[in-house]
């Protein structure tokens, strides 16, 4: 039928792709002096992850600037290229492949979203290129990037705090403070980050005697969330758990408060950026999440980072900026110790990978080392939205 044909044309036509390439390569001396260490970051500058990607990018660029101005890595300059994956899994993989094979980058950073990581990380692993995740917090990011195959991935690392640690810590701390009895979970079913977070909530609540009355699923692109919020509010839960990202948490909070619900919002990493807190405004006041970083944390290298970031960009950094900044420092430290040849790219990538396993430096996230699973082990900060775009500290949970 012609009308059906028109509908299919519409659906088929709203598709776009992008790619780019550049040449590059090393020379044959084995000294770092005058060489370039090429890094590629696959970030979501636009699309759903556009709330987070630009922060990571700014943190990374700041670290690159600082290192290069201080003489580089043993005299070699870091050249970081940031490319936008538009929060799209397929585009993320295309960009990563271009960086690894055409641009011949030594190592990659990103991608911003866990949803894209399931495409990008296995690719980097198979092409034997180190990749450092800076904001992905879902399940099965490290070490089993090829899940359900559980062989540990050798080339995949992450410096972002996994939701498997953050969400239970957050629920535990709120349960101890307020003893909630009931909860409702709102989860975007078509997003890995959100559904992973939802699964962690479901697995955790029982431990703290919270009765999960209902799990309400929706699709991440739906603009009208009112029917879902109405369902949640009418169950009168003590807590609404939100594991989504981007603009969704703020919309849920605003709608629930309008409908007169007075309970507590608990969330995941999706809460932890100023944009979300700002969009939620007064409706978000008190919403709690566990964060990998806190603006006022007392680690020595944090104050320095915060000042430098504010000077460079005119506003406070957030968790994503801190993780992006730390990522460049981590790779720079590893590169310094890796005895790179600059002539044998596969060999250099392998040397960098080994050196990354033994990183031990100070970062704004605190003293940094990877676990044997290439994951981060660090202090967790329980923070709450202050109702005007910022966060205040509730608890500090030291790494066990």
């Amino acid at each position, binding site marked *: 039928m012609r009308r059906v044909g028109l509908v299919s044309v519409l659906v088929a*036509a709203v598709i776009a792709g992008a790619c780019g390439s550049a040449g590059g390569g090393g020379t044959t001396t084995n000294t770092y002096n005058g060489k370039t260490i090429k890094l590629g970051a696959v970030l979501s500058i636009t699309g759903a992850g556009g709330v987070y990607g630009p922060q990571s990018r700014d943190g990374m660029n700041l670290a690159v600037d600082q290192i290069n101005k201080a003489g580089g890595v043993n005299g070699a300059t870091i050249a970081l290229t940031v490319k936008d994956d538009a929060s799209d899994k397929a585009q993320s993989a295309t960009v990563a492949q271009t960086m690894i094979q055409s641009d011949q980058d030594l190592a990659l950073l990103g991608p911003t979203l866990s949803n894209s990581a399931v495409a990008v990380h296995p690719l980097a692993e198979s092409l034997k290129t180190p990749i450092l995740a800076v904001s992905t917090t879902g399940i099965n990011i490290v070490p089993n990037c090829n899940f359900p195959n559980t062989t540990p991935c050798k080339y995949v690392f992450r410096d972002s705090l996994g939701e498997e640690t953050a969400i239970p810590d957050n629920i535990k701390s709120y349960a101890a403070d307020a003893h909630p009895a009931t909860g409702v979970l709102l989860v975007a*079913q078509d997003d890995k980050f959100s559904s992973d977070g939802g699964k962690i909530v479901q697995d955790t609540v029982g431990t703290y005697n919270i009765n999960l009355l209902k799990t309400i699923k929706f*699709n991440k692109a739906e603009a*009208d969330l009112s029917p879902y919020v109405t369902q949640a509010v*009418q169950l009168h839960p003590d807590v609404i758990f939100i594991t989504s990202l981007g603009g969704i948490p703020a919309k849920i909070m605003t709608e629930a408060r309008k409908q007169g619900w007075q309970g507590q919002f608990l969330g995941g990493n999706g809460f932890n950026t100023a944009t979300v807190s700002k969009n939620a*405004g007064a409706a978000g006041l008190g919403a709690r999440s566990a964060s990998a970083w806190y603006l006022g944390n007392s680690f020595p290298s944090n104050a320095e980072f915060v000042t430098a970031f504010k000077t460079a960009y005119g506003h406070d950094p957030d968790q994503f900026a801190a993780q992006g900044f730390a990522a460049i420092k981590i790779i720079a430290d590893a590169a310094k110790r890796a005895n790179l040849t600059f002539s044998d790219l596969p060999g250099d990538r392998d040397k960098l990978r080994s050196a990354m396993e033994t990183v031990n430096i100070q970062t704004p996230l605190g003293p940094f080392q990877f676990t044997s699973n290439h994951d981060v082990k660090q202090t967790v900060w329980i923070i709450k939205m202050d109702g005007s775009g910022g966060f205040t500290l509730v608890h500090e949970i030291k790494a066990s």
Partner: protein
Amino acid sequence: MGQQILNAIFIGSIYALFAVGYTLVFGVLDILNLAHSAVFMLGAAVTYTLVVNHGQSFWVACAVGIVVAALMGLVIEYVCLRPLRRRQAPPIAALISTIGLALIIVAAIEQGRPGTLFAWLWLDGANPVTMPPGSFPNPTWHVAGLTLEASKLAIIPISIALMLLLGYVMRFTQVGRGLRAVAENPRAARLMGIDVDRMISLTLIISSALGGLAGILFGVALGDISPYIGRDSVEVRGLAVIVLGGMGSIPGAVLGGYLLGFIEVLAVVLLGSNVRAGVAFAALFLMLVLRPQGLFGAQLREKI
């Protein structure tokens, strides 16, 4: 359940208002204007920008938003449709050219960041934003367990009044008769002395003004304005609505809009939250199989 019925009426009104513009162009020109969803978004984006980035009052911003949307209708006609019509290109060419324009409009808004060429138009890039509280009057009442919010309640009378007005204009005025004549047979209309190009421009202006207004109401009431609201929220649903109601029929689009709103919300309430889109489009599919001419089918339907 009461609150959910209200939710259905709110979203149904938006769908109806959006789809009326869609179906108006289809009725007159027999082509789908797929830039309509971008005009929807543009109305909301311009209004937001004027209030937040240029300090204008909400009402001025709304008026300008609707005017900009209406002018975009003229752009659609002059850039995407008229040149192709002159060369008697097939309808698919116009369909593709309107998709192209939609992508360009979305991309222009997406580029809007501080310091860029489009910074005057939009400052938030791809990020979803919300109208700051207090920028428009929005009292909320709690009555008999229902939450009644002014910004959402207002949608219903505005939509119904505009749709009635459009129906009146179409049926009882000289302009309406001209538009219907063009819809029926452009060549005959031209022979009768009707300026067909002018009528088509007028159609695009009315359609886009309605689309822009729908976008503003949507963005304000749902607290969600981003470059993607047209594409994600109403583009395909708008098509579903006009197929449900009968292609080209204004009463059909109105009824179809409310029907889709109710089907979606009922799906959430009765069948669980993860089947909303599936149930809505299953209804569309059933309609195509059982009654391909839509609710206001061939016998009942008079073009526009």
